[in-house]
């Protein structure tokens, strides 16, 4: 089951450059939220703050509070590793593990969490691959082919399956379809649409049509600030900020 997210006064830096400025956002459970904005506006950094991936960069700094469900993930004493175990992430470029079989790719997260029983793993791998709409294409070569042998679109669905296998409370997607062709993109979008019945999804996208198609809520970022955050129909039909309107009508960005 998905959980809600509550972000309060989030500021993030790389070295001296401030990437995010005073971001506030509240997202309900089991909804898809799209994050849009021009390149360099801080979208990716924003989602990376939601599972504490931001701090894996040695120059990174952060203030503010992020609550996922009822847990404050930046509270002292909370281990970033535990936070990430409950939050799935899918990256822009598909990054399956090239030295592992398809099966091992999906099972990787479970094995990290101490699952070793054969039948549990089998069931979880099958379930996740079915959820990611990849099962039918790979079920015969699960243990024979490596994750890197698949096509780009299949690789990305494999990465989604890998993220789903650990039953995350929240799924973060950083431009999951930007490196894919339209057909693969369509499959991923369909998938996101189905996932929201069980997961809370935050998706960064460059593609405004994509945001309009899949998201319930949309946030528009510009120069590190969250300019507007509202229901997707509202953002794309009657935005309240002039800058949002300029962006979605293609006048800049």
């Amino acid at each position: 089951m998905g959980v809600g997210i509550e972000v309060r006064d989030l500021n993030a830096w790389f070295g001296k450059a401030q990437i995010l400025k005073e971001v506030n956002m509240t997202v309900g459970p089991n909804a898809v939220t799209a994050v849009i904005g021009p390149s360099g506006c801080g979208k990716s950094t924003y989602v990376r703050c939601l599972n504490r991936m931001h701090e894996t960069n040695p120059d990174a700094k952060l203030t503010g509070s992020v609550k996922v469900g009822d847990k404050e993930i930046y509270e002292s004493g909370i281990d970033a590793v535990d936070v990430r175990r409950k939050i799935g992430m899918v990256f822009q470029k598909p990054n399956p593990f090239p030295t592992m079989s398809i099966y091992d790719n999906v099972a990787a997260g479970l094995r990290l969490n101490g699952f070793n029983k054969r039948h549990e793993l089998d069931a979880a791998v099958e379930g996740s691959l079915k959820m990611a709409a990849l099962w039918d294409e790979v079920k015969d070569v699960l243990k024979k082919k490596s994750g890197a042998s698949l096509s780009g679109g299949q690789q990305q669905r494999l990465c989604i399956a890998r993220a789903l296998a650990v039953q995350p409370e929240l799924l973060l997607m950083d431009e999951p379809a930007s490196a894919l062709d339209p057909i693969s993109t369509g499959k991923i979008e369909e998938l996101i649409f189905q996932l929201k019945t069980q997961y809370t999804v935050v998706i960064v996208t460059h593609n405004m049509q994509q945001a309009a198609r899949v998201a319930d809520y949309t946030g528009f970022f510009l120069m590190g600030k969250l300019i507007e955050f509202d229901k997707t129909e509202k953002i794309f039909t009657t935005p309240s900020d002039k800058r949002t309107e300029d962006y979605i009508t293609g006048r800049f960005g």
Partner: protein
Amino acid sequence: MSTPTESDLPRLLRIDTHVATAADNAAVERAELPVVPRIVLHSSPISKWLDWVFRNLLLLCSLSVLGVMGIIFYELTSRSKLSIAKFGLHFFTGQTWDPVAGDFGALPFIYGTLLSSVVALLLAVPLAVGVAIFVTELCPRMLRGVISFTVELLAAIPSVIYGLWGIFVLVPILRLQVQPWLSKYGAWTGLFTGPAYGIGMLAAGIILAIMIVPIIASITREVLVAVPQSQREAVLALGATRWEMVRMAVLRNARAGIMGGIILGLGRAIGETMAVTMLIGNRPEIAKSLFAPGYTMASVIANEFSEATDDLYLSALVEIGLALLIVTVIVNACARLLVWSITRGSSVRSHA
């Protein structure tokens, strides 16, 4: 615009096949496109000729490597004819080395070379890989340069200095501290028995290990750096600890390259002469204990070449050189086979 000529065609076709956007329309309205001086795009005859020269020059360079190898092999065989004729294949299995009686067998030297190299690898690989992991994954940025520079500095020390350091520092420590301890607790293995001279196979192995750490560490470091960041992030995002990240994302993807580094280190250990000669004890016999003195192929050639007065003796020494070459080739082939077998699926390079 004038009527389209043939040279305009590709551009016109391009415009036809994509839907004009606002930006395209604006560009068309703005002005005539600048005229590209197409003449530049033709390659001149001289550049074609240069291309041919360049290609053949490189071919020559590559062939010269094969040529040198061929000449070395030919020289070694032709100059060891006497010994090959007298001992045949028994040369490689014979255990006596008696210049006075004119009886020569190379097995103790082959054994000494392989054993000292194996000891060196066992000590050096964990150390070098550990250093590389620390430098690339864990080390604060300020320390990173200092550590890699120091490790690489080890490679710049001449081997005779290693030999001297071995005699004056390493050997006394081995004799007085390490070997008594080892023979007390490790004698049951059979590897640590006999009198503790200090000098011997163990000392040679340790000094070789120190000498090959830099090459293995620096190659491993390069390979680890080449592992895409996206692989590390993939594992971290699954909730991996630092060590799990290193194991799953870094070492797994880099294993072929690390093996490559180990092969280069092994090559250096097999051929190393000076430091080993000073520390191994130079006695041609096969002993199981690492405390016992031994002899390597490279050492015997260096030590005895100047005293080899009769033709058979000289010829036997040259054949030792041939044996060294053959052992090197076999070891490298085996190592390559190993790399191939563990990376048959795919490697990080095919992905990145």
